[in-house]
C-alpha cells in the first residue's frame, strides 16, 4: 500500500511534466490543425537555455522566465516567416516535413552549442533535499512539480475558459473560418498560440531537466509521449491534455513498477485501447 502511494506520486510527477508539454501541443494541433513535430526540440532547447541560465546566473527561477521567452520568440518567428504559408488540412505532409526539418536544425545547432554530452541541471536550492514519506526519502523538487503542474493547469483553465482570448481560441478550435468571419484576426491568434505553445514546451524543458537530464535524442522521446497524450486526450482540449497526461503518466509509472519488461508495451496498449473505445480521444470532437 505504501509502495503504491509512492508510485502514485511518481506517476503524478511524470503526468504533470507531460501536461506542461502536451498542453501547448494540443492547442496548436486543435486550433491550427498543425502537427508540430518541433515541440520536442522546443522542449530540449528550453532545457538547454535553462541550463546556461543556471550556470551563468546561478538562478533557477530566472531560467523559468528566460527560456520560455526566448523559445516563445523563436516560435513566433517560425510561425511568421514559414509556418503561416503551410496552413490547411490538406497540407499535413508539408507541415510534418517542415516542422521535422526545423527540429533537425534546432537539434544540430543545440549540439554545436552545448555539445553531445549528457547535461544535468541541479534542482533549485530552495527545493533540494527530501521529505520522509512511508520510509521513502521523497525528493521535495518532485513533490513541488506536482503542485506546479496542478497550478499551471488551473491557470490555463482560467485563461481558456474564463477570458475573451480563451473564448476566441476555443471558437477557433471548433471552426477557425467562422471566427475569421466574425472579424477576428485569426492569423494573429494562431501566431500567439504557436508562440505560447513553444514557450510552454520550453518551460517543461526547464522544470523537467532536473528529472530527465538533457541530451540530444531526448527531444524525440518526449515528443512521442506528448503526442500519445494529445491523441488519447483529444485534439485541442485542455481537459484532454490534462487527463491524457494523467493516464499516460500513471500507466508509465505502474507499468515500470509492476511489469518493467512490458512497460513500453503497456503505454501503447493503453493508447490503443482508448482509441478503440473513443476514436477521437477522451474529450475530442474531431476525428484523429
Amino acid at each position, binding site marked *: 500500500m505504501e*509502495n503504491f502511494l*509512492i*508510485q502514485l506520486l*511518481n*506517476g503524478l*510527477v*511524470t503526468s504533470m*511534466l507531460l501536461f506542461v508539454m502536451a498542453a501547448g501541443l494540443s492547442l496548436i494541433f486543435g486550433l491550427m490543425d498543425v502537427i508540430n513535430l518541433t515541440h520536442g526540440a522546443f522542449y530540449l532547447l528550453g532545457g538547454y537555455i535553462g541550463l546556461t541560465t543556471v550556470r551563468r546566473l546561478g538562478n533557477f527561477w530566472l531560467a523559468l522566465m528566460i527560456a520560455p521567452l526566448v523559445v516563445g520568440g523563436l516560435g513566433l518567428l517560425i510561425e511568421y516567416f514559414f509556418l503561416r504559408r503551410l496552413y490547411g488540412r490538406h497540407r499535413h505532409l508539408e507541415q510534418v516535413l517542415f516542422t521535422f526539418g526545423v527540429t533537425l536544425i534546432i537539434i544540430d545547432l543545440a*549540439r554545436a552549442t552545448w*555539445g*553531445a*554530452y*549528457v*547535461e*544535468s541541471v*541541479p*534542482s533549485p536550492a530552495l527545493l533540494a533535499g*527530501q521529505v520522509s514519506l512511508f*520510509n*521513502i*526519502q*521523497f*525528493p521535495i*523538487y*518532485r513533490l513541488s512539480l506536482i503542485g506546479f503542474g496542478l497550478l499551471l493547469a488551473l491557470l490555463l483553465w482560467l485563461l481558456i475558459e474564463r477570458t475573451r482570448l480563451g473564448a476566441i481560441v476555443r471558437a477557433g478550435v471548433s471552426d477557425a473560418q467562422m471566427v475569421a468571419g466574425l472579424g477576428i484576426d485569426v492569423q494573429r491568434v494562431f501566431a500567439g498560440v504557436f508562440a505560447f505553445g513553444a514557450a510552454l514546451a520550453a518551460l517543461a524543458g526547464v522544470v523537467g531537466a*532536473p*528529472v*530527465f*537530464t538533457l*541530451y*540530444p*535524442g*531526448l527531444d524525440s*522521446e518526449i515528443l512521442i*509521449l506528448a503526442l500519445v497524450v494529445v491523441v488519447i486526450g483529444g485534439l485541442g482540449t485542455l481537459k484532454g491534455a490534462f487527463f491524457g497526461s494523467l493516464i499516460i503518466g500513471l500507466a*508509465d*509509472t*505502474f507499468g*515500470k*513498477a509492476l511489469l*518493467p*519488461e512490458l*512497460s*513500453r508495451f503497456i503505454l501503447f496498449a493503453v493508447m490503443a485501447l482508448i482509441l478503440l473505445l473513443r476514436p477521437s480521444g477522451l474529450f475530442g470532437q474531431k476525428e484523429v
Partner: protein
Amino acid sequence: MKQQCALKGGLSRRGFLKLTGAAGAGMAAAPWLLAGCSPAVTTSQPLKIGLLLPYSAVYAELGNSIERGVRMYLDETGNEAGGRSIEIITEDEGATPDDATPKARKLVEQDEVDIVAGIVSSGVLGALRDYFDSNKKLLICANAGANGISRGGKTPYIWRTSFSNWQPNWPVGPWAAENVGKRVFVSVPDYAAGHNMRDAFLNSYQAAGGEAVGLQVTPFPNIGDPAPFITEIANADVDFLYCFYSGGQAVTFLKAYGDFGLAGKLPLLCAGFMVEEDVLPAEGDYALGARSGLHWALYLDNPENKTFVEAYRAKYPDKTPDVFAVQGYDTGRVIVEMLNRTQGDSSADKMVAALDGISFASPRGPFTLDAATQNPKQHIYLREVQAIDGAPHNVSLADLGEVADPGDDSKG
C-alpha cells in the same frame, strides 16, 4: 616502378607511352590502371582506415572521444606504418544498424578502405558481423562489447581492442561478496549489453556466496523517469546496488538515485561505464563513492597512463580523457603495429595473421590481443569515484588481475 607495372600488364608500346604520359599528368586520376600490379606498388599508396563512429545521437561524444584517441596515436607515430602513410575517412555510425549499415558499405565499397575501425553500439556490431565476414574485410572494433563476437559469433575478420561485456563485471563479483555484502539488488537496461553485464557479475558473485535479492530490467533505450525503479530499490533490504547504465541513462538513473536520498546510504557498485569520465561531470556529487570495475581509470597509476593523460590534455585542451579515448588510442596502436608486422601489406589475411599476439604497455596497463577470443587480455581495476580538485574522478583502488574472455558462456 610505374614502368615495371605497365610492362607487366603487357601493354603495347603506344599504350605504354600513353600510360606513362597519363602517369606524369597525375597518377591519382587513374588508380584503376594499377589494379593487380605488384604489391610494391599498392603498398606505396596510402593506407585507408574507415572510422565508423557515432557523430550524432546519444553516443556522439563517445565517437568523438574514440576518434581523438586514434588520431592522437597516429599523429605521435607520424601517420605512417609499415612504410605507408595513413589516411582516415570518417563516417557516422548513428545509433542503430539502419543508420550504420549504409555507411559501412560506403566505406568498404566506395571509399575502398583497407580497414574499418570503430563501432560503438553492440547492436550495430551484431548487424554488421556477417557483412565483414563474407566480404573478408578487417574490422577493428573499438568499443562495442557484445560477448558473442568473442564466442559463438567469432569471425577471423573482426578483432576487438576494447573489451567484452563480460570482462569488467565478472572479476567484481567475488570482490563485492567479500568487501561490500552478500545481498544485492541488480538493475540493468533490457538489452544485450545489460544482460551480458548482469549475468557476468551474478555468475561470480553467487559463486562467492552472494545472493541476488532483487533483479530489475528497465526499458531500453528510453528509460524515461527512473523514479519507479528507484522506489523499488529503496524498498528492498539489500547491502548494495549493482548496475550497468551508460550515456544519458547513466546520468538520469544516478540522478534519481541521489534525489531519492540513496547516495551515501545504499552503496553503488557498477560496470565502470556508468561512472566514466564522460558522464561524471553531469552526475556530480551523487557519484562520489561509487565503485566500479573497468579496464582503465583516469588516475590509474602507471607511467604510460600518466604520459597519455598529459599528452591528451595538451592536444585537446578542455577535454578530459575517458576510457573511450584510451580504446581509440590503443586501436591506433594496434593498427600501426599490425602494419609494421606486415610491412605495409594490407591484404586481409596477412593483417589478421599479424594481429595475433600483439602486445604492449597501454595506458590501461599490459594489453595483449588474445588469439583465442580476438579480444584483449587486460587487467580489470576496481575503481572509486573521489573528489579530486573539487571534481569527481575515478581512482583505482585495487587491481583485480589480468582477465581474458572465457570464449564461451560457461562463466556467464
